[in-house]
């Protein structure tokens, strides 16, 4: 039996992994019940499973569970602090960027990683990051709008009022 020790949304977790291939996405969803992380393709191409591991956005369906040992992982469930939406989540709601919602958590986490590192990321950088994701519903225009709105919200929040 393999044992995985890591932190999820700031809480230390210990997980006993079953035999065979177990991915970080499986650990989050099946072992820890954090089903906000979605699996759309299983090969890291659609981005629905994106979470943050040691401050970097990763596709959790391509990260073997062992690779998370000792790491700090953030998921969509960890984002709404104290029951309040994160500015990126607010932006997705306000921009009408949510349709079926299956790609949404991954996109939100991708942008959270981006703006945490680079709060004033330019449009080109934003587009580069969003291009790692697939969405079949929106045609992307509202997602791009939500990303830009997220940026201004994050900047506004960072500034002392």
């Amino acid at each position, binding site marked *: 039996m393999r044992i995985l020790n890591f932190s999820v949304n700031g809480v230390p977790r210990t997980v006993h992994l*079953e*035999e*065979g*291939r*177990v991915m970080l996405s499986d650990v989050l*969803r099946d072992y820890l019940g*954090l*089903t*906000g*992380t*979605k*699996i*759309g*393709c*299983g*090969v890291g*191409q*659609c981005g*629905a499973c994106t979470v943050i591991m040691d401050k970097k956005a990763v596709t959790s369906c391509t990260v073997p569970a062992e690779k998370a040992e000792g790491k700090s992982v953030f*998921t*969509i*469930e960890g*984002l*709404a602090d104290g029951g309040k*939406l994160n500015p990126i*989540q607010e932006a*997705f*709601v*306000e921009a*009408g960027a*949510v*349709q*079926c*919602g*299956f*790609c*949404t*958590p991954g996109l*939100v986490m991708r942008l959270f990683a981006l703006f945490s590192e680079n709060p004033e990321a330019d449009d080109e950088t934003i*587009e580069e990051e*969003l*291009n790692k*994701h*697939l*969405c*079949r*519903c*929106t*045609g*992307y*225009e*509202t*997602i*791009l709008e939500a990303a830009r709105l997220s940026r201004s919200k994050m900047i506004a929040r960072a500034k002392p009022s």
Partner: protein
Amino acid sequence: MKQRYVGQKVQRVDAVNKVVGRACYVADISLPRMLHAKVVRAGIPHGKILQIDTIEAEKMPGMKKIVTGKGCEMLFGTCLWDQPPIAVDKVRHAGEAVAVVLADTVNQAEAAAKAVKVQYEKLPFVLDPVEAAAPGAPVIHEKNGSYRRVEYSVHPIPGTNVFHHYKLRKGNSSVARAESDVIDVIVEEEFEFPLSNHVALEPHGAICRFGLDGEIEIWASNQAPFVLRDVLADMFKVPASRVRVHIPYLGGGFGGKSDVSIEPMVAYAASFVPGYAVKLVLTRKEVFTSSLLGRGMKGKMRIGAKKDGTFTFLEAEMYFADGAYGDTSWPVDTVAGHNCTGPYEFGNVTVDVYGVYTNSPPVGAYRGYGHPEGQFMSGRLIDMLAKRLGMPTGEIMRKNFLSEGRQNALGQVIKKSHGNLAACLDAVEKAIDETPLPENDDRYLYGKGVAAMMKSPKMAANAASCCTMQVNADGCVFVNLAGIEMGQGVQTVFTQMVAEVLQIPMEKIKVYTDVDTQFSPWEWQTVASMQTYRGGRAIQDAALRIIELAKDTAAKVWNCEPGMVLYREGELIHPNTEGKLTLGVLARGYMSFNGLTVGSPLIATGWYRVPGLTDPDPETGMGNAAGSWTFGCQACTLRVDRQTGEVKILHFASAFDVGKVVNPVTARGQVAGGVVQGLGAALMEKIVFKEDGTIKNVNFPAYKIPRLKDAPKKQTIVLLETPNDEGPWSAKPMAEHPIVAVAAVVLNALYDATGVEFTALPVTQDKILEALRKKEEAL
């Protein structure tokens, strides 16, 4: 009267749960005593099953049960019962289920599934629909023609692979063709719209549990819970009331979840382990190989016109590679036929559509439902015709548009209220012409294209939506329907509509989230862009009944005629005394100071069915078979890179006459998303088979769908609102529509840019490069 909620940009009611990851999809559900399923797939496109050896697999850790089709005599279906839940004696496509392995974990089930050994006698296979329909083709269903079916609508040709032949005969096209003057023009061409996948981001899933008491319960990613319920009841020979279907949120559907697909197999497997829940979530690969595909049309069309551009006749033949089973595709074939004219009047129409068994996954509904396939042909041919006549494409379109008093191919007469095509065309032409195209240069070629579309909802003639509405003692309202929320925003527009009729704030209204056949009122199914339109009418009906009930009770309290009681903003008002009673006070009947209570609790059921529908006549294919239409036009400008063949859509303009925009944000979202999905079909997407008959591109990026950078640089979206008596506040179907004309628009623009007439989709970079090279060589 000005609306306060209908027509407003209100926030989606499901948005918060979706951005925090709380919205529940089928894969997120776990049940007690749950086994995980893995499916052994055929891996060959056609063959007899000789032996299934499960001895090694049975010994694997965690293994609970291996289910095969041995002895299974069930066939399921809704109108054509031709499919077993799992392969019995032969496999008809490479993704077909041969065995289902049930184990404690997914990994254990997968390991055991790999240990199942199946021996086949391979049979010749056929993938091309024209070849499959020809004499001498491998026979895929020996029993074609003798399966149980709805005989009025499904027309097989026994002894062939053609399980459905739809024919449309209006006027006499051969006479019209023979009478063509030498100066008249006839254009004809062959077209291909290949098999494609819907690619909803959420893969299909189902969890089924057979109770020891004989109850069947299933959770599924499905757009048609009541159809699924009835299919399972029919399969297992139990009353439908003993089957309970739960539908959580769907992560996109696009029709790919509207038909019954994997659920019968999961239920069949679960029936062997009563007391356990059995869960299967498809891998992305399985979505491609083993759910449902869309399109798959090869066809030819011929259009005749007078020198002035007036259409005289249309003739078409379409062959659909409908895959191993036909129940989910025959109505697509019919609709493809009766709508292939596009929104134009033709006095003479001859169309033959053949639904053909092929050794590929079954075809089902896919956004647009046959319309994109058929109207791809007419949309392109009309552009070719315009070039031949030396007229602008828009001029020919305008001349022949369906409009008041004109007759469509089904023989239905168009009313003004059906929509304004000319205004749609004006809108897209204006949008596109605002930015003049640059001149071609050494690097880029530029072009623009236009096409029109129409879509009718295909539905069972008895299809209806029902709504129950219940007022609570604090005046808030609970509303229940069974329209599936799959991203289109149905829960939000329903909330707006209830607010509008009852004149109360949206905060006081709670619409259903999950659909559960035990509690939800009956609904035909969430397809054909019908929820806003049909569900909305059911809401209006229910809400008006609530008001009537409240008026009755108020009249009892005031000892007056119900007809004189007024209703305003959640209150009943006595016109003379100005006395007021709130909906909340009347919610459980009116209780006086001593407890004596009069009047009915405020609970009501409303419903709506599009009236007067019939199935098409078996001989002529005509009749009142289309419940309504939504008309629209689309146009684009694009740029082709001569060196790479890359196409960039510079500006895509869409205009639809939707009657009424209920929510501008969600309505625009449908169009913007539909256009991009259509661009995928036009430029990227195609299911490709290997020599051995298995699918080659079973995941991303081998199967490429549009990403952000593939989207148009700019989209203009105009929604016109021609008043009509059909939809609630005039709102008509509009969700599938944005995809219908896209391929024709883009290929017309590609012709404008390159001078090459592309007729087969998708037009990939490689195809463009090759065509440009050939053109240069020819110079």
